[in-house]
């Protein structure tokens, strides 16, 4: 048999060994921990594939075996060998310029995003890169951001070589032109920290200087001390007012300009009123003012925001199609092969696509034949064959050897990117920072102003000199501090609880969407089913072990995913033996045949095996027939394997009154099984293109205005649907891998907890309501002092922190308790909860 030109790689990305190796001894790959046999070894250690062995040998040669001591089997399975030209685009100066942060000819600094980073060994190896390649001067990791910062000498090595080294050891950097924003964000975080620090410093000192005032009940023995303290307080309050609180004023002003009283408006008003009244009191010598309360408000509010904003650094929820495509492509011109940036592709260009690369733009195939995997685009599992002159869509993954394509549409107009280019129907709604407490805050502000007005009216009749004190102290004491803190801490703690169950939400407002969901749409392939595993059954007279092993030996010859699944299943059932394989021929799209130990075996579609009419029973139905010496022996049915617990989850959701829908890009072979799991009222749709899925969600929302749609999907093919649903959850088997733009990322092992997650989201609303009532009670107490113009600084200084702290404690305890009661899963492993 002829060796394929490219390295055969199976669906799971494992370089395929063409021998049915003895599977008798089971062990773990020393590098990556995948279970394997003893067929590949070095130094008495065993590996699952040659890729892992090569990495081990490279590290061993360079004295870096400490990698294996820090963590057990830390390695990352090398996902197939990269083609030697894969990173050629990194030699393109224009692309380099966009990636390199700094260079002076002797030192070049660049940072990469490495989603594979997962343990202490990774940090150790990545920070010792200089031992592996001479030109690398220095490398530092940021584990939570999964970033690697490399300084190298451009005289000794190149950007491309650094990336190739990383890819070789299993950490292929994710390179995209739109991750330039990360650095700016960090600066903002620092400023936020400094604001908190300044507010904390001023608050504690103001409190200290106010103590004498609290305990001397307004009459201090030495007037000059009293003045000194007041002026010191004033000086300390200035940075709080002008620097730390600036964010609230900005936000409130932005809201006012859009004629919208947001939750920051009453805070800004309270800070402003407290500050001016205190300044007035101090300068006129009338009293000590409320500067302690003011700086306390600012400190607590800033701390609350910090708590809420601390989200998942290493996740990106806003990826669009650009994140999926390669940066550079190889264009064939009259001058030979040239690397060009993807945006410069124009109609009529000839591009070269290599094995396992993604097709960058819709194009007509110029080479005789290509086998492509559309699972990314359409959700179909089975690879398809395209012949010369046929159109291949962008986003397809090339499985066979290198081919050339003639571009028919530039990248921005290709079939798959159209999903994004359609206007987002809820664009406005999604972008405005919608929060559950907004309508309340508006109401709150109006009621507060009403009370202040009433008090003013009362005092206007009774004693006009008390108008100002009564109004200002109402505004001071009724600051929505505790109200706002309750929502902040409730949602902040819930985000953490969700994260422990491996559901990572983009922000707190997603909780609110989840709590209103009444319609749930599932994608089938990759979401309800395992992406790489299948259920196989044999129809016909049961196979004898000898027959089964012979068929396995034939299946092992092919790189087709179906063959691989069959081989694994047969090996697991019957074990292996040694067979001589001769006359092996593969007919792409139809099947394979070979003589195994003298028996002629054919494996493939009905038309291929029986020689009859293909009819409706194509290979797409998940059926593989087998014949022995020309006689039909039976058929393997390769069905999707559903994740454990899917039927229970469906039953739970149906009992909870949700309307369920299942969309699939596949044919309807699975209809009966899905029907059994999801019950008669669930709507099942098959053969759905990405556009169909998106349109389906839009129709659901249009037909029933009360429908709040949750979409769960996995691939790029669900991206449109995820975008236009009320809440879109991207399901992923590895959360650090790339998922389409969505509101949340869910680890597939927690998929079946969706019903519990939704129940928990609803309970959050109740906690916020309870704490709202509590904070209203506090406000009533404070207001009862204020409207009587009897609010002393001492009462304000006690009431404010007591109410804030008690509310924070209440909501944290209530949400943690609710998580336990609703049985939200907790998976406390260090890798993914970070």
């Amino acid at each position: 048999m002829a060796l394929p030109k490219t390295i055969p790689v199976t669906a799971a990305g494992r370089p395929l060994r063409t021998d049915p190796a003895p599977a008798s001894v089971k062990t773990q790959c020393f590098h990556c921990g995948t279970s394997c046999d003893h067929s590949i070894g070095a130094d008495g250690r065993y590996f699952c594939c040659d890729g892992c062995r090569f990495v081990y040998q490279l590290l061993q040669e360079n004295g870096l075996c400490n990698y294996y001591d820090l963590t057990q089997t830390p390695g990352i399975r090398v996902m197939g060998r990269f083609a030697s030209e894969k990173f050629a685009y990194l030699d393109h100066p224009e692309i380099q310029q966009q990636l390199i942060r700094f260079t002076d000819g002797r030192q070049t600094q660049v940072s990469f995003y490495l989603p594979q980073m997962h343990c202490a060994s990774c940090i150790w190896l990545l920070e010792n890169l200089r031992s592996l390649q001479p030109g690398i001067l220095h490398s530092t990791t940021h584990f939570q951001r999964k970033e690697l910062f490399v300084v190298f000498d451009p005289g000794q090595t190149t950007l491309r070589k650094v990336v190739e080294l990383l890819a070789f050891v299993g950490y292929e950097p994710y390179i995209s032109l739109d991750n330039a924003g990360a650095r700016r964000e960090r600066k903002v975080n620092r400023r936020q920290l400094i604001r908190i620090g300044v507010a904390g410093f001023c608050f504690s000192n103001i409190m200290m200087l106010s103590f004498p005032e609290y305990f001397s009940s307004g009459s201090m023995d030495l007037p000059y001390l009293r003045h000194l303290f007041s002026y010191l307080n004033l000086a300390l309050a200035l940075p709080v007012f002008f620097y730390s609180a600036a964010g609230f004023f900005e936000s409130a002003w932005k809201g006012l300009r859009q004629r919208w009283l947001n939750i920051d408006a009453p805070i800004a008003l309270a800070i402003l009123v407290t500050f001016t009244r205190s300044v007035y009191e101090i300068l006129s010598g009338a009293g000590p003012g409320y500067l302690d309360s003011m700086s306390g408000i600012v400190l607590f509010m800033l701390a609350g925001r910090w708590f809420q904003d601390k989200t998942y650094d290493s996740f990106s929820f806003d990826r669009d199609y650009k994140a999926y495509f390669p940066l550079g492509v190889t264009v064939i011109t009259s001058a030979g092969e040239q690397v060009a940036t993807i945006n410069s592709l124009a109609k009529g260009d000839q591009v070269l696509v290599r094995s396992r690369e993604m097709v960058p733009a819709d194009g007509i195939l110029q080479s005789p034949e290509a086998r492509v995997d559309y699972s990314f685009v359409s959700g179909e599992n089975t690879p398809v064959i395209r012949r010369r002159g046929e159109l291949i869509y962008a986003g397809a993954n090339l499985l066979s050897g290198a081919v050339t394509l003639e571009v028919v549409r530039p990248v921005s107009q290709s079939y798959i990117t159209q999903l994004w280019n359609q206007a987002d129907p809820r664009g406005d709604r999604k972008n405005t920072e919608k929060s559950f407490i907004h309508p309340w805050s508006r109401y709150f502000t109006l009621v507060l102003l009403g009370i202040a007005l009433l008090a003013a009216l009362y005092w206007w009749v009774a004693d006009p000199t008390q108008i100002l004190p009564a109004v200002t102290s109402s505004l001071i004491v009724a600051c929505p501090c505790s109200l706002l803190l309750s929502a902040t801490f409730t949602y902040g703690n819930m985000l953490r609880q969700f994260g422990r169950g491996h559901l990572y939400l983009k922000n707190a407002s997603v909780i609110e969407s989840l709590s209103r969901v009444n319609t749930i749409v599932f994608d089938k392939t990759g979401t309800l089913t395992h992406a790489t595993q299948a259920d196989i059954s044999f129809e016909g007279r049961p196979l004898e072990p000898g027959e089964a092993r012979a068929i396995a030996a034939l299946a092992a010859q092919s790189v087709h995913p179906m063959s691989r699944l069959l081989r694994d299943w047969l090996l697991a059932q019957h074990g292996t033996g040694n067979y001589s394989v001769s006359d092996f021929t593969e007919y792409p799209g139809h099947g394979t045949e070979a003589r195994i130990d003298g028996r002629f075996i054919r494996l493939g579609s009905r038309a291929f095996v029986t020689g009859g009419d293909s009819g409706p029973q194509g290979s797409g139905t998940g059926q593989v027939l087998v014949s022995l010496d020309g006689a039909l022996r039976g058929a393997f049915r390769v069905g999707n394997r559903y994740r454990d617990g899917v039927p229970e989850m469906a039953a739970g959701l149906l009992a909870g009154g949700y309307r369920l829908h299942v969309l699939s890009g596949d044919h309807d072979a699975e209809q009966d099984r899905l029907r059994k799991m999801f019950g008669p009222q669930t709507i099942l749709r098959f053969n759905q293109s990405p556009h169909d899925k998106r349109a389906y969600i839009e129709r659901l929302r249009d037909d029933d205005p009360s429908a709040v749609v949750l979409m769960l999907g996995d691939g790029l093919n669900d991206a449109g649907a995820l975008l236009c649903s009320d809440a879109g959850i991207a399901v992923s088997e590895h959360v650090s891998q790339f998922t389409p733009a969505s509101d949340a990322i869910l680890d597939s092992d927690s998929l079946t907890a969706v019903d519990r997650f939704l129940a928990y989201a609803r309970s959050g609303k109740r906690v916020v309501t309870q704490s709202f009532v509590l904070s209203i009670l506090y406000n009533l107490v404070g207001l009862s002092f204020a409207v009587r113009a009897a609010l002393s600084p001492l009462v304000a200084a006690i009431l404010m922190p007591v109410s804030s702290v008690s509310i924070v404690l209440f909501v944290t305890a209530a949400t943690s308790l609710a998580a336990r009661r609703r049985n939200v899963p907790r998976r406390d492993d260090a890798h993914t909860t970070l």
Partner: protein
Amino acid sequence: MSVLVILISVSILVAGGFLVAFLWSVRKGQFDDDYTPSVRMLFDDTPPPASRATDSLSEADKPSPVKTKHS
């Protein structure tokens, strides 16, 4: 009671010193990453040997270094 004035100014100075230290550390990036350093400090101090193989990677450049076995 002028001792009070001295005490207060000293206490504010001390607190101010801490504030300055905090601002300095934030600006120096001490708070940027609160996980990796905790792992890094556990690594051995002896650095691994400097790179000796200059062509270790060029293996990866070869078109097909994977040796496929045949039965």
